[in-house]
């Protein structure tokens, strides 16, 4: 076995003595039947169809031909330098959380199929191995203790053949005689404090929204409760001129009093949402090999957040005596078969990693669907109590009081931020002059809840819509009119007191919806339909939502390289989970570089070390002072890398990709073109060229032209740029805290401003030796950052400011006998800003809407001991929406055209599933005259209501 080849693995970072490497997608074709793809077929994806639209997804051919591209596909023999032998692991989990765990008994397994190693808590303790602190304690449950949650892991069983694994699993999986339980106890989580509590209080200035708020989170900061009996108790002292908390309570109390006593219409309602599994069709899997000889640990993970894994895993290894000899951790991050948040900061790879440390050969651990339900990340169930007040004359919203509690499950994952984002999102598209929103998240015995699609907003925002619909009825005002009256206007402040970026085009959407057949003719359509279908009831519902995208500490990196042959290779840190990030990044550069990318490498992390960036503090918690001091260091950034989640790639990743492309164009391709024109097509000896303004240049059919000069092909320009020794590779890093960091860089003799906080470049092959010698060890020249301005840390209190609006009209029929809902037609309006790839946006929209239907009508997991944690859940019980459920032939949409070509390319992946929720609830009401306040609304619920 040879040592790692530096060409294959590039060093990422050193954490406590362990060097972490990320490995590119590598396939050793000789063992697989899957074939390589002929170059000219592979490049077919970027054949332009229509306006800068690719023919296929970048990864389409791999996906339709069954190539090994997913994490779960990898076997030891596929990976270069690994042994060919594959071992298998099985994770043993409890299915009770209210009894003492007394151990397990594998004596029923015949000798022939016994595991060769059983890893228990004792093994981990002996080796000082622990979960990263993010995930908490008790990686494997200790004998004699009560499980923290249903599905708590107790052991990892290792088998040296698939056959043994399979036979043993058949025996163990549903066998109640394996795990032994002792006496019944209280649930562990009964004695654990809430995972998070937030309170968002705001009162606008009496002069209106434009003036400074009387009180808001952005202006005054946050305050927190004490925990008594594991429940939040907020400060009781109200004082208008007191500290943040006392002031906050003062304004909160005042709002409560007014809602109680003023002559307002108050919609006072309780809502409840369920536990949902993201059900990515690829269940989580892992492969790993501890190469003792070379002191290396190799792993293949299915993760949306590999960056995070690098760091946390490195730390785990560095802190254990067993792994003190491990010098290198090599991480493969392939494509994933769906994420929806279910693979963001997942605990699963750590179990795999532990298994690898004790296995004698590479070990594969792959959840089946029962196991995925039992252990995978869930969506937080909510209980929400809202009081929404309206002025009876103007129909304007006067204020909102909301109280929400979330079930975070047995391990804390993203609960604190989900709690916050859900709370900050409840206002939806409406302007609220006053609000008091409280939210807290409690632990429970359920599987842990985390970053699932919607991130809390799917649960909270539809409640606003439902109340608006109800209020319209009570006030006897047209429901769309009531929405128009209260819709957010550009420049108004959100519940946190921050001003959302970009124009709010809600009214435009409402106006369009009003003219749509489903809405405009709903009364006649109902009459007609019910006459033709006497046993069915017809209903129409409208829902609108606006969803933030981003996390407030987003740090994308992109590198674009031009080869001398004229190929473009893009590398980004995003993970491709299906949303088409690879495609959109490959496409969007065409605007600046004249053609789409030839190759797009995803999940690259180590590559970006070339920018030599360092990070020091938590970007959410650091002080302004820290930021000011640290930003003087030209290599410092608040965050080096962030996860692929939060509907991020189309905006954040694109920002840096586009910035890098622009630099390449301005600094390299255009000067190369000017040089060629000057040399060959202009009387340079006699005149000064008048075609040197970069803004005049245009790409046409892959050729660059300016002011009628001969169009030059990209390939020619690439060659020229290389021969002139111009920049041929640009690597860029950005930081966004609801606004981009802006840096001034020294580029040659000039100073350039970019909305980037790190830039490194490579020069072409013709660059002189002195220049080349100045390159760092990665072969890059880091541009000197002369100064940088980061958004103020106080913007953290804004929580979110980037929003994408979306509205859906749903037309449904309900069968009187069964209560079954049939979606007849839907029409959705989405304001995506500028669109990279239209079909990707449409696919997201159609898929999101369908997932929203699942959330509203079908998907359900109990939160007690009969829920997913008991290991007996599969798709026979968990109904995900099928084509027969979503009106598949009649799903239409309008993508609002951008206001200008400079509109952002917005994140849309989450918002598209939200408005359908309240649209369906309202449509059910219109059909049955019964309002529902819980999800999902089952056919049984409806039947009973009819």
């Amino acid at each position, binding site marked *: 076995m040879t040592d790692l080849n530096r060409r294959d693995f590039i060093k990422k970072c050193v954490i406590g003595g362990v060097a972490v490497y990320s490995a590119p997608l590598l396939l050793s074709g000789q063992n697989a039947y899957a074939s390589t793809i002929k170059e000219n077929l592979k490049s077919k994806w970027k054949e332009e169809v229509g306006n800068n639209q690719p023919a296929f997804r970048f990864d389409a051919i791999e996906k339709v031909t069954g190539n090994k591209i997913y994490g779960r596909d990898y076997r030891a023999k596929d990976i270069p330098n690994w042994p060919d032998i594959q071992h298998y692991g099985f994770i043993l989990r409890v299915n009770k959380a209210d009894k003492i765990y007394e151990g397990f008994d594998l004596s029923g397994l015949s000798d022939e199929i016994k595991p060769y190693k059983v890893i228990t808590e004792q093994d981990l303790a002996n080796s000082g191995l622990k979960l990263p602190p993010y995930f908490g304690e008790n990686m494997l449950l200790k004998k004699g203790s009560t499980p923290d949650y249903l599905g708590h892991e107790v052991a990892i069983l290792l088998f040296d053949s698939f056959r043994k694994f399979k036979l043993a699993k058949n025996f163990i999986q549903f066998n109640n005689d394996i795990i032994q339980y002792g006496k019944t106890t209280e649930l562990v989580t009964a004695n654990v404090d809430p995972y998070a509590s937030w309170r968002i209080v705001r009162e606008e200035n009496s002069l209106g929204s434009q003036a400074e708020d009387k009180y808001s989170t952005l202006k005054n900061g946050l305050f927190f409760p004490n925990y008594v009996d594991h429940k939040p108790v907020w400060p009781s002292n109200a004082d208008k001129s007191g500290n943040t908390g006392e002031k906050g309570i003062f304004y909160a109390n005042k709002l409560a009093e007014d809602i109680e006593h003023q002559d307002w219409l108050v919609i006072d309602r309780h809502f409840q949402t369920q536990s949902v599994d993201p059900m990515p069709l690829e269940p989580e899997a892992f492969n790993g090999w501890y190469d003792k000889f070379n002191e290396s640990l190799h792993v293949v993970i299915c993760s949306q957040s590999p960056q995070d894994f690098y760091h946390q895993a490195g730390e785990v290894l560095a802190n254990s005596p067993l792994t003190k000899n491990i010098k290198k951790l090599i991480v493969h991050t392939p494509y994933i078969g769906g994420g929806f948040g279910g693979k963001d900061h997942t605990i699963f790879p750590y179990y795999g990693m532990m298994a690898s440390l004790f296995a004698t050969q590479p070990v594969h651990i792959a959840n089946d669907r029962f196991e995925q339900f039992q252990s995978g990340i869930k969506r937080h169930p909510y209980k929400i109590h809202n009081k929404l007040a309206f002025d009876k004359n103007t129909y304007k919203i006067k204020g909102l009081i909301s109280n929400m509690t979330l079930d975070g499950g047995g391990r804390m994952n993203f609960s604190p931020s989900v709690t916050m984002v859900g709370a900050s999102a409840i206002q939806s598209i409406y302007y609220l002059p006053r609000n008091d929103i409280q939210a807290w998240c409690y632990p429970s015995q359920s599987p842990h809840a985390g970053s699932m699609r919607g991130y809390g907003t799917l649960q909270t925002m539809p409640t606003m819509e439902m109340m608006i619909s109800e209020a319209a009825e009570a006030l006897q005002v047209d429901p769309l009119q009531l929405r128009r009256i209260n819709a957010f206007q550009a420049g108004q402040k959100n519940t946190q007191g921050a001003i959302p970026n970009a124009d709010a085009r809600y009214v435009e959407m409402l106006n369009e919806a009003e003219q749509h057949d489903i809405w405009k003719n709903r009364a006649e359509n109902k009459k007609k339909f019910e006459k033709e279908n006497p046993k069915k009831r017809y209903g129409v519902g409208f829902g609108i939502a606006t969803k933030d995208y981003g996390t407030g500490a987003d740090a994308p990196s992109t590198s674009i390289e031009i080869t001398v042959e004229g190929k473009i290779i893009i590398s980004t840190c995003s993970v491709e989970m299906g949303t088409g990030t690879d495609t959109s990044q490959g496409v969007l550069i065409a605007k600046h570089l004249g053609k789409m990318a030839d190759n797009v490498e995803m999940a690259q992390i180590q590559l970006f070390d070339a920018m030599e960036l360092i990070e020091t503090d938590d970007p959410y918690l650091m002080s302004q002072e820290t930021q000011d001091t640290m930003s003087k260091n030209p290599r410092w950034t608040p965050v080096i890398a962030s996860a692929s989640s939060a509907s991020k790639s189309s905006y954040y990743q694109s920002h840096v990709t586009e910035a890098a492309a622009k630099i390449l164009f301005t600094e390299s391709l255009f000067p190369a073109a000017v040089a060629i024109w000057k040399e060959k097509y202009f009387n340079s000896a006699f005149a000064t060229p008048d075609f040197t303004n970069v803004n005049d240049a245009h790409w046409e059919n892959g050729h660059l032209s300016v002011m009628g000069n001969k169009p030059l092909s990209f390939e020619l320009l690439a060659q020229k740029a290389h021969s002139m020794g111009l920049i041929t590779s640009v690597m860029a890093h950005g930081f966004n805290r609801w606004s981009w960091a802006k840096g001034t860089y020294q580029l040659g003799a000039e100073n350039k401003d970019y909305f980037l906080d790190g830039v490194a470049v490579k020069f072409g092959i013709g660059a002189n030796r002195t220049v080349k010698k100045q390159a760092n060890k990665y072969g890059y020249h880091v541009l000197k950052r002369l100064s940088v301005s980061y958004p103020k840390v106080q913007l953290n209190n804004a929580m979110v400011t980037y929003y994408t609006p979306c509205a859906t009209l749903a037309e449904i029929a309900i069968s009187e006998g069964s209560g079954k809902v049939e979606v007849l037609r839907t029409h959705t309006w989405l304001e995506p800003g500028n669109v990279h790839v239209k079909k990707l946006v449409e696919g997201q929209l159609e898929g999101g809407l369908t997932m929203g239907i699942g959330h509203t009508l079908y998907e359900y997991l109990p939160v007690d001991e009969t829920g997913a944690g008991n290991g007996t859940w*599969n798709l026979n019980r968990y109904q995900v929406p099928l084509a027969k459920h979503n009106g598949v032939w009649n799903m239409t949409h309008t993508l609002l055209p951008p206001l200008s070509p400079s509109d952002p390319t917005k994140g849309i992946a989450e918002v598209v599933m939200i408005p359908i929720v309240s649209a369906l609830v309202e449509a059910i009401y219109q059909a049955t005259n019964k309002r529902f306040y819980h999800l999902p609304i089952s056919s049984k619920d409806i039947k009973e209501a009819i």
Partner: protein
Amino acid sequence: MNKILSHTISLAFVSVSFTLSASQELIEKGKYLADAADCYACHTTDDGQQYGGGKAFPLPMGMKIYSTNISSDKTFGIGNYTLEDFTAALREGKSANNGYLYPAMPYGSYALITDDDIKALFAYFQTVPAVKQKKTDNDVYFPANVRTGILGWNMLFLDDKRYLPDSEKSENWNRGNYLVNSFGHCGECHTPRNLFMALEKDKPFQGAVIGSTWAPNITAENLLKAGWGSDDLASLLRHGYSDKGVVTGEMYTVVKHSLSKLSEQDMRAVTGYLLNSDEYIASKTPVYDEKVITHEGYPTYMSYCASCHGDKGQGKPNFAPKMLGNGTLMEPNQYNVVYSIIGGIDSQYYNQVNSFDAMPSYQDKLSDQQLLDLMNYLSASFTFDKKEFTAPEIKALRESVLESLETEH
């Protein structure tokens, strides 16, 4: 003025709700009993409103009869019924709207219902939402269209007597007997019928062909022989699912709409009566013998069955039933086993936490020999008595299953 008015209205409300609450209990009781009697199953179509009737019941020779509207609608339903009309319909099959009812209406069983319970049922049916739906005309011809013919049938076979408790037996057993034989009308399917389609009362619960399935023998003797315990039976009747197997076909709807709603106490009574015991009876399971892997049917079982039902017949909880000790495998008549394998089982949806995907049909996959081997394997590995089947027996069963599948489609 407004204030005074609203005050009066709320007072009126109080008084109304006061009188309501007195009868509310009766209505609630009636609703519970209507569920126990599974009125829903016959008087509601798949896409129609509750109790609107109109569900078709095929008769021989292509004839069809349709259930009546029993909602509170005064024109189309039974909103105009008096208690006496209602009682006559229930006990004698005499409908104030439709003349004599066909004996598809189990008035022979309902005749056992006590006066008090009938009052409760009546009270409830007066409150169910009115459905404006006309009765579909029965599609029958002579002599079946002569409803007075039913009168003669009634005189011959109808035993219009209330339930008489057996003083030798416990209260629990008597309650079970009453529920099973009156509301439950279990015998209507599980007791064989004579040439005139009347129940053979000397063979109670011994099993009968019903539609395309076999309503199994549910005599206590047979249940106990097959190892049924109190918990299994209760679980089966409540969830359609148990350690001893699942329900299929018509019984699925019976569980879904009726039995799943029985109170704990009544469920105990029903299982106590069916197992003929006041004691808790533990489930019995045969011991799996590893030696069966040499059986000719083993490869077939492993090929098609094992992934869901377990390589040792252990099943997967909430997903696919156990084969080891499965009650259907131990039923004297193996028709349902062959039916499940050859015809498959439709998916079942009870509720959000209890539903099953369809079992595929293996008609195209199994030769007669493979089916025979499989049947013998199932018996040899998962039952107590390990019966051996012959080729003609299984072939005959397969043919009769195919025949009834044909008529179904």
